[in-house]
């Protein structure tokens, strides 16, 4: 079927800010979709609130609206743009939900906007529990049985027919608390009784338990001519029970016979046909490991994280093809973009093993609940490709950047069997490492199977890795042993430690004996057809397929898995860098390992190496390709951290050189440099021991800011108020940080934070913008609301900032991007907090709002094209004062149990949203709405304020009261407010009774916002923590900084009418 000619203009919906469960994969899908539609000649209008994405580049769509993704704003865009059609199935759940909302609203009918792709009816059939259930019954596909019960007897009766084991899920409890598995009637009674009590509606769901079943996913795609194919099947190493986003996943399926695989394949195709999906779809199935019994768990009628993984795992671009199918094309008409000789209507054949390993944020949230379950907790993931399972797994492990280069965690080395058993049984995120340690201790493998129900195939392969470790230790220096270890994916650094050699020695030994990797192509067809895909992975085999061209080449290092502190912003910069390199006529080569991102789309670069970002793996590519140099400044801290060892190996770093990087990152060099440039910084020193730290703090005075040197996103950074806290920090934080990196102790200055991104070419410095943070210093810049242009600082201060930025650029001899954090104290004195010699989190935001394509300009500078040649002269980019841009952080606290939501120097946000409008309040409103804060013009606010903050909070409370907000407060706060003439509802503290206590008030939704601040003394106080957690889990915005609260009030004020009597006005005037 030819593509639709009757539609011209298509509105595409993005997925918004990055949160756990909806991450960079939608930037990849959305970007592909927009490009695919444009390729076919359609006009593309995009709405997406996330400024950090490639998708929101003005080149990706014809018109890009960075606006909140909700009904209100989408309607405004429809009024203005009058699109013919709308495509939402590529914007994750957010995209689908918005299309459904728009349809319900009636605006799509009113304006004749057609829904492209899967129709809404089909979507509701997949997403509505009851509709889905009846459809599955209709087509004879089995689903786990379940029933809602209201009494223990109901439950017991139901289970008499259903049988055991069952899962009990109490309704509407926090994070599924109170539920559990019951193997018999007695257990069922106990759990149900408790569950019914906990559930606010006294209701539980009893579901047939399929825990321990294999979890298998099928990525299927269907066109409107009913052609349907399986792009990829995947097997979760973790059985049913752990969210697939948190599971280690392999592709293709490893432990199924053809018969079993065909059975599930047929079921998946039957389902996608029954649902009449048009485009990509994910089917999750559970298969009994002891029979051919299976159940359909879930269907996602859209592209998803799994489809991004499947696309990268096979080379089959699901999102791109899905967009074309939405236009009416059929699979057999679309050329396979990989082979370019075959068609998209085929099932890819792979000839390698792919492993996906999730990346968890627990390095930043050590107090978080590390037990995995049905709620996803990973922020990102890595993928690796190998020709055997061990190689694939070990490459994934060393891609994680968790300071491990092997399936061995130093942290677990001293764990005894019992401690390991606990990690394994509890589904701790470290369980794979615990299993390896368990086997390393010679403990029984069958017991691991009993505990985990992971297929013996996977466990035996881990056992084989342990066996090889023994072989390694018994054959120190042996070349044959080395060959075998390398074939199975062992890292040089790991072998080196065990052989008491340096990694470089191992490398030399390999080189001398010709034990070097070759690169194989990912071609969708297992080599059956000629392909020219520039997509490669390393393995130790005979034939190298990566033909090296005669072009001048540049290697760009990506930023690895998405984690807190290093998000999609760095992928944005990487992609822009690559585009620029190609524009300039060089061959651009990417090394990266994140399957979710745009940078690992093989169409982006001239060559993609899907590899771990370690010295060894990068050097292999360098040796083969012999590039002019390597660019490290766009791949975040991941790439910067490799600079040192690459230079040691003779690699040329393009752009800012290693010396300058060290000057910015080494504490002493940094201090010296700033002194030389006569730029002030908060007083501070480094310490290694507790005593040293105490001495320094005593000298500069509390509060002090403490952090390890070489930090990422403020990892382990804290504001410390006294000796006691400092000793505690030194004793606890240091353990985690590598020993050769000391702790920095700085004077903590209360003041405004500002941030600058600039580009230098060694001669000139261009500053696209200065951003002002809403929250005062102390809140990590990544968690602050950021405003451009600055709103409250004087021109004088701004001039100082500009002056310092210029001096630093030249003084440090930066070539390319750098980022500076400033602090301005109450006397308008400007200090430099830190300098990052690389692309930063704010680069995409600033690039988009100023129009200065910073990553492109910086890349050119790094390649020797001066700023002058590019048309820039030293100085500050002129600000457009007619519009205000606000970037607000987005958190995923609801998904991370036991993580304290209080903001501080440690970064906690997972994503960002942007709002822009003609004034600050409107822009803030949009940014807050887009970041998930619900704003209503009237309602209530709960304030529980620490002692020192009460006067400041009073001013905010008054403003809330003036616009008609009701104030709830705990007694201490309430009494201060009441003394000052405010009406306050008293909220009981938690120990003052169950009814009407703070928790109760939040849970019942009686307040719209919570403002909670804490003094250092209260840090360990449970009340504050519980308030913040309950707010997070009930999706009520909890502000822990009075600055955020004040900003919010100003938005509410702008939306409301103030209620002030004439008398009060009179009072004021006299």
């Amino acid at each position, binding site marked *: 079927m030819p593509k639709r000619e009757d539609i011209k203009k298509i509105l595409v919906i993005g997925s918004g800010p990055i949160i756990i469960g909806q991450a960079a994969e939608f930037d990849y899908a959305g970007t592909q979709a927009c490009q695919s539609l444009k390729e076919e000649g359609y006009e593309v209008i995009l709405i997406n609130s996330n400024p950090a994405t490639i998708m929101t580049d003005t080149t990706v769509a014809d018109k890009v609206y960075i606006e909140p993704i909700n009904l209100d704003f989408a309607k405004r865009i429809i009024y203005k743009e009058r699109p013919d059609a709308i495509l939402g199935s590529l914007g994750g759940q957010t995209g689908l939900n918005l299309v459904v909302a728009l349809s319900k609203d009636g605006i799509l009918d009113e304006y004749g906007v057609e829904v492209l792709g899967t129709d809404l009816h089909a979507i509701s059939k997949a997403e509505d529990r009851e509709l889905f259930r009846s459809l599955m019954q209709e087509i004879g596909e089995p689903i786990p049985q379940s029933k809602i019960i209201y009494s223990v007897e109901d439950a017991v009766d139901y289970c008499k027919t259903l049988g055991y084991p069952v899962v009990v899920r109490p309704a509407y409890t926090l994070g599924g608390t109170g539920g559990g598995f019951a193997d018999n009637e007695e257990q069922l009674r106990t759990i149900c009784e408790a569950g019914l009590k906990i559930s606010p509606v006294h209701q539980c769901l009893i579901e047939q338990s399929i825990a321990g079943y294999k979890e298998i996913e099928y990525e299927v795609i269907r066109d409107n001519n009913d052609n349907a194919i399986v792009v990829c099947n995947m097997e979760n190493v973790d059985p049913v029970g752990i969210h697939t986003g948190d599971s280690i996943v392999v592709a*293709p*399926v490893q432990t*199924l*016979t053809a018969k079993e695989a065909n059975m599930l394949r047929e079921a998946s195709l039957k389902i996608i046909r029954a649902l009449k999906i048009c485009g990509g779809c994910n089917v999750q199935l559970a298969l009994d490991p002891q029979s051919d019994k299976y159940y359909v768990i879930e269907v996602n009628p859209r592209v998803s994280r799994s489809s991004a993984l499947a696309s990268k795992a096979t080379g089959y671009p699901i999102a791109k093809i899905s967009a074309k199918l939405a236009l009416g094309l059929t699979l*057999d008409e679309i050329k396979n973009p990989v082979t370019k000789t075959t068609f998209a209507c085929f099932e890819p054949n792979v000839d390698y093993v792919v492993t996906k390993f999730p990346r968890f944020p627990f390095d930043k949230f050590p107090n978080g609940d590390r037990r995995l379950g049905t709620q996803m907790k990973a922020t990102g993931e890595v993928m690796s490709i190998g020709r055997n399972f061990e190689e694939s797994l070990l490459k994934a492990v060393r891609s994680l950047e968790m300071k491990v280069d092997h399936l061995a965690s130093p942290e677990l080395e001293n764990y005894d069997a019992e401690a390991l058993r606990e990690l394994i049984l509890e589904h701790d995120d470290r369980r794979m490492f615990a299993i390896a340690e368990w086997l390393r201790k010679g403990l029984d493998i069958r017991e691991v199977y009993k505990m985990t129900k992971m297929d*013996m195939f996977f466990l*035996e392969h881990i056992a084989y890795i342990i066996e090889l470790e023994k072989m390694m230790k018994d054959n120190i220096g042996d070349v044959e042993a080395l060959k075998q270890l390398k074939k199975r994916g062992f890292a040089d650094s790991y072998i080196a430690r065990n052989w008491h050699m340096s990694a470089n020695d191992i490398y030399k030994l390999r080189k001398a004996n010709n034990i070097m990797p070759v690169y194989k192509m990912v071609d969708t067809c297992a080599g*059956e057809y*000629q392909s020219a895909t520039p997509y490669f992975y390393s393995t130790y085999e005979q034939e190298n397929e990566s033909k090296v061209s005669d072009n001048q080449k540049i290697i760009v290092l990506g930023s690895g898995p998405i984690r807190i502190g290093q998000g999609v912003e760095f992928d944005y910069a990487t992609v822009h860098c690559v585009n620029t390199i190609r524009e300039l006529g060089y061959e651009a080569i990417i090394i990266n390992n994140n399957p979710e991102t745009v940078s690992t789309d093989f169409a982006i670069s001239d060559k993609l190496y899907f590899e771990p970002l370690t010295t060894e793996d990068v050097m292999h590519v360098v040796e083969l390709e012999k590039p002019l140099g390597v660019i490290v400044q766009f791949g975040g801290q991941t790439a910067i951290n490799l600079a040192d060892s690459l230079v040691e190996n003779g690699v040329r770093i393009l752009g800012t050189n290693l010396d300058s990087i060290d000057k910015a990152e080494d504490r002493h060099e940094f201090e010296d440099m700033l002194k030389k440039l006569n730029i002030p910084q908060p007083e501070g020193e480094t310490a290694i021991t507790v005593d040293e730290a105490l001495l320094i703090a005593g000298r500069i005075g509390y509060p002090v800011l403490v952090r390890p040197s070489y930090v990422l996103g403020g990892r382990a950074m804290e504001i410390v108020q006294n000796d006691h806290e400092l000793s505690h920090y030194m004793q606890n934080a240091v353990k985690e940080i590598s020993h050769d990196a000391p702790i920095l102790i700085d004077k903590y200055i209360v003041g405004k934070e500002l941030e600058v991104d600039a580009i230098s070419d060694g001669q000139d410095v261009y500053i696209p913008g200065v951003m002002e943070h809403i929250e005062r210093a102390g809140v990590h810049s990544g968690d602050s609301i950021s405003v451009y242009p600055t709103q409250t600082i004087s021109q004088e201060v701004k001039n100082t900032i500009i002056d310092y930025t210029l001096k630093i650029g030249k003084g440090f001899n930066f070539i390319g991007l750098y980022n500076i954090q400033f602090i301005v104290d109450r006397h308008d004195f400007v200090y430099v907090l830190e300098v990052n010699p690389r692309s930063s989190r704010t680069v995409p935001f600033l690039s988009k709002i100023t129009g200065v394509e910073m990553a492109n300009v910086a890349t050119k500078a790094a390649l020797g094209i001066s700023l002058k040649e590019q048309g820039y002269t030293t100085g500050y980019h002129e600000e457009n004062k007619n519009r205000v841009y606000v970037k607000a952080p987005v958190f995923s606290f609801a998904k991370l149990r036991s993580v304290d939501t209080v903001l501080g120097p440690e970064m906690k946000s997972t994503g960002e949203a942007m709002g822009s409008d003609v004034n600050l309040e409107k822009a803030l409103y949009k940014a807050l709405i887009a970041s998930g804060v619900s704003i209503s013009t009237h309602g209530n606010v709960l304030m529980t304020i620490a002692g020192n903050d009460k006067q400041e909070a009073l001013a905010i409370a008054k403003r809330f009261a003036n616009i008609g907000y009701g104030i709830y407060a705990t007694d201490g706060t309430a009494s201060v407010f009441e003394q000052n003439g405010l009406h306050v509802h008293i909220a009981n503290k938690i120990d003052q009774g169950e009814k009407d206590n703070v928790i109760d008030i939040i849970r019942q939704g009686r307040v719209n916002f919570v403002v909670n601040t804490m003094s250092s003394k209260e840090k360990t106080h449970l009340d504050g923590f519980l308030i913040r957690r309950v707010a997070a889990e009930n999706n009520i915005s909890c502000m822990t900084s009075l600055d955020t609260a004040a900003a919010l009030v100003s938005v509410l004020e702008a939306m409301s009418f103030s209620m002030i009597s004439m008398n009060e006005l009179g009072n004021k005037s006299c």
Partner: protein
Amino acid sequence: MKRLLVLEDGSIYEGRAIGSDNFKVGELIFNTSIAGYQEVFTDLASAGEIVVMTYPLIGNCGINRDDYESISPSVFGIVIKDECQKPSNWRCQESLEDFLQREDIPGICDVDTRALVAKLTTSGTMKATFANIDEDIEEVIKKLQTAKAEKLVSKVASDKSFSIPGEGKRVVIIDFGVKLSILREMSRKGFDLIVLPYDIDAKTVMSFVPDAVFLSNGPGDPRDLSSSIETVRELLNKTVIFGVGLGCDILALAGGAKVSKMHVGHHGNHPVLNKKDGRVIITNQNHAYEIDPDSLNATELQITHTALNDGSIEGIAHKRYKAFGVEFYPDTNTLSHTLYDDFKMMIEKENQDA
């Protein structure tokens, strides 16, 4: 123990020995199936072949009693990347190695199978054999170059007639090395099956008064089977005929078309376009010969299916008689599955007409 794989063009691949040391000269082909190695190794269409599996991990689920495609597997050898020594599956009865030993099939692992595939797609399939590490390679190569193609069907197909009784229509299966899953599926459809040897004559076939004749899959060059071709030619106007794989080629030859050897053949999953409804079927294939499209002009055969990727003929039907055939296996998914129903319907229609 080390072992060599030696190719007709003189290239040598070193790997680790698996299976027996019953080295024979075979046709080296590659198969892209990801799951289903047991089916591939036991499919009699693989007889005479040394099969390179492109998927690197083989043996993960071991070998079970249910998934055999023949009673005596006749593949000449297997070439794989990574052998799974500790298989895991609830139906697993033995490891791949145990199976190979028991069935006297040699193999080699730890070979860069992707490099082999690249070689075969460039130069086409060629003869190959295994050799011990100390063997005189010149001799081995000479042996390869002088080896003559064996008559495989006569070796692997049953030479006895037998019946698989059913309640439904009677189908005579002419056995060129029939896949057990075809027999299973035909039984499930209720057909009353009579299996006859490949060199049976038309008169004997008709003496069973069949409602239809099924020409099975099988190994080797269909052009060698002149008596079978003659039998089918005689049967054309007498009954409904359905051919699969080699059986489809026999039908084509009987109908006057030409068949030739493919460059690398189709072994594994391939998309096929059904010309009747314009829909694509993902099929499982194992054939090394194809019908020459130009030769159809002079016949009453028409094309019903083509391979989406290379355009080769995947299905034909007789314009006048109720005879049709497909090169792919109809037993892998719901869409190609319907061919059995087509077959059944055709038989029923024929009966009504008669």
